[in-house]
């Protein structure tokens, strides 16, 4: 039951959300004077403290819910409010925990950029939106922050707006996210129209409307009948659409690789750790809405995404693109986690992934920074993000290397890392779940297993090319040598590296059963019948395959025994990212423009038609379709105009100026009338 008194945790959470907003406003107000970015950094650190306090207070206790009246439409009051349950505070903390290092990192990374004051403002805006999103207590509010997050990401992707690529990327990102938003909105509308409230707790809480077993009919709003399961599926799908776009699920993933046009720090925060995970968070929130069918859809989509993205990642050369695809693939993992009903594990993976993927990006950023530096220093014509130009950086940038190695191991789920815990938990439960399924879907866990192999392959490939392989010729013969990144960048990386290891989550590195996080969320969940054997088997197999892959990569890329021919169809398919973009271009963008051109043409020619009616009519005979078009749109007006004009013309004929003709006409008409009368008589 929502209470209206502000308790300390609430106050803390509230300030955690609002501080970045204050930071945003302040930096806007200061304008160029806010270059150094202290405002943003102070704001985020404060909200980290607040979030920490809130977390400590709320975690493991009953959720706290507060709301204030916002506005009323008809009889329905809409509220703004906070809902602090375990998931919320967890995310709250996570976001702050990731955001702070990124801020610190950016301090050095973005130094000297002309537009940096905008950068800080945008960053604060994003933090505000993201934090608001996680604590929002009703779907409408969630939607609002959901969109704001997208907006902030739009701004940050297009941060270097003079680059065409960036300008194009942020438009693409926003529009594709818009598709999802529409889904979200439609979902909201459906829920509202069928149940009459948008309050998360009232809907999805333990004794909420949807607490009833999925698929069962729900008493609808204003007592008129019930909501049919069919509409619930649609509503569920609508929400899932939103999540798909935001979390870059196949086929909506295309915006994420392009989004790498933004500064790397941004990519690490938004497009790796937090925002893209929002979709997963949303699904976790509305989880009770989904019935069996919907869950299957989610699981399948997640799996496909995971696989496809990993497959694309295999052959990319742009370091950030590789990481982007890896992110997509990991998001796919989480989705399938949701799909198999284990959303607590999905959230767990979300958290661990946030840390190590963020770290990966930061490390990559450090390298790119260095490459860029060299490029400018020696005027080299190289793409600082192309891994073919790197190599042998192991010795040059040892700390970067170390952190990146840890992150990669976490990514592949190597024991002792956090990734190991979450990923294996996921795999294991996938198998357990599949044991209960019939038909093709039971193949899901195997696919996921394959994906994890691919994962280890592409990430090791990355490591090998960047750190081990011999330095690229262009650098070598110039005698150029890289240096370690500045300290302000290293400190956050090290911090994140620590977070990517197991101790943060459990003291037993080998058993995910004891992870406090899982226990915290899983409380109200039904668990699947455990298969003991799997808990033993899966980790071992996974680890072994990982090592094998590592060896293969060693032979291929470092020893140079490269067996594949890069012209093979499969290779090309992966390199060109499955031609998905081209497909969109051909299937949606161009037809859309064509259609719009056609409609505009219609309009314009209708207008012309009015001016010179006769001529237009003549042209109209040319093509029957255009003729119809013209007459669909305001043909009537044109008709009147033409008729009037024509009639006027005809009438002029009678005015010949011959008085006798006039008289003749008069008598003719009289005669006609007489005749008519006579025949009327008869």
């Amino acid at each position, binding site marked *: 039951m929502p209470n209206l008194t502000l308790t300390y945790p609430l106050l803390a959470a509230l300030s955690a959300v609002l501080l970045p907003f204050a930071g945003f406003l302040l930096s806007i107000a200061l304008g160029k004077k806010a270059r150094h970015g202290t405002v943003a950094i102070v704001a985020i650190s404060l909200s980290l403290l607040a979030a920490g306090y809130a977390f400590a207070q709320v975690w493991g206790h009953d959720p706290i819910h507060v709301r204030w009246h916002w506005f009323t439409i008809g009889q329905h009051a809409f509220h703004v409010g906070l809902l602090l349950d375990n998931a919320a505070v967890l995310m709250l903390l996570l976001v702050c925990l990731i955001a702070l290092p990124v801020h610190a990192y950016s301090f050095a990374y973005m130094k000297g950029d002309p537009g940096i004051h905008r950068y800080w403002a945008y960053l604060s805006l994003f933090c505000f939106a993201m934090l608001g999103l996680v604590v929002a207590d009703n779907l409408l509010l969630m939607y609002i922050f959901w969109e704001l997050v997208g907006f902030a990401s739009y701004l940050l992707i297009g941060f270097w707006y003079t680059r065409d690529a960036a300008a194009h990327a942020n438009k693409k990102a926003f529009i594709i996210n818009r598709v999802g938003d529409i889904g979200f909105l439609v979902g909201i509308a459906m829920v509202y129209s069928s149940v009459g409230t948008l309050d998360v707790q009232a809907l999805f809480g333990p004794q909420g409307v949807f607490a009833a077993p999925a698929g069962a009919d729900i008493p609808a709003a204003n007592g008129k009948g019930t909501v049919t399961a069919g509409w619930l599926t649609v509503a569920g799908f609508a929400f899932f659409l939103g999540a798909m776009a935001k979390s870059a699920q196949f086929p909506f993933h295309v915006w994420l690789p392009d989004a790498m046009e933004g500064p790397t720090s941004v990519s690490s925060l938004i497009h790796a750790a937090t925002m893209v995970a929002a979709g997963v968070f949303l699904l976790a929130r509305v989880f009770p809405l989904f019935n069996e069918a919907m869950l299957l859809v989610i699981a399948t989509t997640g799996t496909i995404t995971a696989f496809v993205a990993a497959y694309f990642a295999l052959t990319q050369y742009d370091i950030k693109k590789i990481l982007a695809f890896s992110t997509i693939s990991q998001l796919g993992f989480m989705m399938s986690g949701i799909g198999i009903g284990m959303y607590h594990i999905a959230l767990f993976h979300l958290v661990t992934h946030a840390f190590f993927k963020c770290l990966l990006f930061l490390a990559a950023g450090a390298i790119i920074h260095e490459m860029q530096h060299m490029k400018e220093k020696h005027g080299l014509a190289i793409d600082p993000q192309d891994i073919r130009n790197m190599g042998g950086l192991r010795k040059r940038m040892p700390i970067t290397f170390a952190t990146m190695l840890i992150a990669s191991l976490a990514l592949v789920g190597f024991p002792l890392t956090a990734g190991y815990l979450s990923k294996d938990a996921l795999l294991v439960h996938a198998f357990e779940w599949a044991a209960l399924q019939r038909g093709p879907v039971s193949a899901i866990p195997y696919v996921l297993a394959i994906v994890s192999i691919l994962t280890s392959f592409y990430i090791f490939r990355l490591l090998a090319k960047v750190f081990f392989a011999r330095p690229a010729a262009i650098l070598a013969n110039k005698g150029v040598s890289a240096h370690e990144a500045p300290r302000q960048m290293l400190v956050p990386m090290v911090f994140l590296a620590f977070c990517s290891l197991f101790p943060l989550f459990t003291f037993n590195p080998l058993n995910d059963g004891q992870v406090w996080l899982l226990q915290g969320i899983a409380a109200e969940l039904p668990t699947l019948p455990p298969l003991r054997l799997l808990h033993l088997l899966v980790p071992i197999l996974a680890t072994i395959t990982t090592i094998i892959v590592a060896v293969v990569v060693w032979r291929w890329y470092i020893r140079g025994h490269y067996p594949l021919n890069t012209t093979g169809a499969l290779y090309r398919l992966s390199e060109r990212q499955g031609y998905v973009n081209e497909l969109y271009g051909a299937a949606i963008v161009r037809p859309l423009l064509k259609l719009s051109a056609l409609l505009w043409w219609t309009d314009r020619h209708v207008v012309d038609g009015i001016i010179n009616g006769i001529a237009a009519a003549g042209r109209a005979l040319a093509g029957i379709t255009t003729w119809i078009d013209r007459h669909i749109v305001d043909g009537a007006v044109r008709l009147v105009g033409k008729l*009037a004009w024509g009639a006027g013309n005809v009438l002029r004929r009678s*005015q010949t100026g011959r008085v006798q003709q006039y*008289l003749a006409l008069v008598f003719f008409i009289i005669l006609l009338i007489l005749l008519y009368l006579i025949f009327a008589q008869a």
Partner: protein
Amino acid sequence: MTELLPNISNKLDHVLAGLPMLLPELVLTATFLTGIGAGLFADRYWRHASFAVTTVGIVLAGVCSAWQLALPAVDNLLFGMATMDAFGRYARLLTAAVCLLFVLFAKANPGFNAHRKKTSDLYSILLAVHIGLNLMGVATNWLMVFVAIEMASIGSYLMVGYLAKEARQTEAAMKYVLFGSVCSAVMLYGLSFMYGFTGDLNFTSAAHIQGLEGTAPLLVATALLFVFTGIGFKLSFVPFHFWTPDVYQGASTPVTAFLSTAPKIAGIALLARIGYAWPADSNAFQYLHTLILVSAIVTMLLGNLAALRQTNVKRMMAYSSIGHTGFLMMAVLAYSSGEFAILLFYLAVYALMNMGVFMLADYIEARTGAVDVDEYRGLGKVLPAAFVSFVILLISLTGLPPTAGFVAKLLVFSAVFNNWQLTGNAGMLLLLIVGALTTVISLFYYFKVPLHAFLRQPEQERKTLPAHPIVVGLALLMAAAVLLLGIFPSWLMA
């Protein structure tokens, strides 16, 4: 003859008793005579003499009829020659007003001033026409009708041909006279039949009515049609409109203004009188109303459509006046037995608008020599006052608020609608729709004037000549009146 002698005295009494009712006409007659006298002798001493006489006479006549408004209605005046009811009196008053305007208008018109005989004879002709029109408005006897129409017509022929200073004027006059005489001849022929059917010339009398009922409908219809021709010529509705554009264009503007206004008032009065003289179920009534209905619709359409293509302002206005005639006929149809307030209101407003527009057209022609619409380009800046009032009058003619034209239109619409609701006669609905449509059409050509005057730029700077300011002054007054009446119609309707 012999049996008449004994009661000749009380017949004379009856006549004498009737005369006061015709006071305005008598005044006019007197003025007519003095006017001629003044024109012959006084003018050379004081050149405004005849003008003054005429003005005073008309005003007097107007005052008389205004004063008579209060009196009770007298029918079967002079042995049923006329009926002196409020309607007729108002019509007289209106006619007087129009005549007065015409006098001032003509006085200011350069053409007439250039004329050798100035305007004195014109005035006396005008007075004759005035009398004719007055009688037309009150006549209830075919003979009286014919006399009145002829009186008005012959006068009008002369007015058109009065200053034959250029070819087109004489041409206009000739067309007018030929067309007119033929029409009146036809009418006369028709009248002879009406007389024959009924043996009575008083079309309101019982004998006349039964007579019509007695005869074969077809014959009645034919005779009516012929009579209709004469009235149609005066009102210039389709198909008797052919003369209108040519004559209006050819005649000098004041005459055109007069012709397009005064005869319509009287003619409509006459039409209304005939239209409701007979019981609604009689054949004659049916035929007449069908005739009016059909020609009203056709007239509205034709007038407005034909106006679309006109470039000469006067010609355009001629067609517009045809269109308005159709609208007036619609009003005649709508007004069911008795209350004619709406009809009168429309007539009054129409008179205002029409006179005003022609005055302005004349004024503009005098100032700049522009007679075609596209010669008006950019004149809005040169003659702002004139064109602003022009636009207001045109808006009123179109029938848009807040002008009197709108109120008049609305009233007519409501009358027609009411009639439809009572009778359920589909024709009425048709009238409504056509009326609405023609409003839209009329916008096309009325707005050519502001289009050129304000929206277009003049290709070359046009020099302006001086002209008598009284006209534009009058026009301004009328525009103001049109606006005020649009906002407070009760001032006139009360």
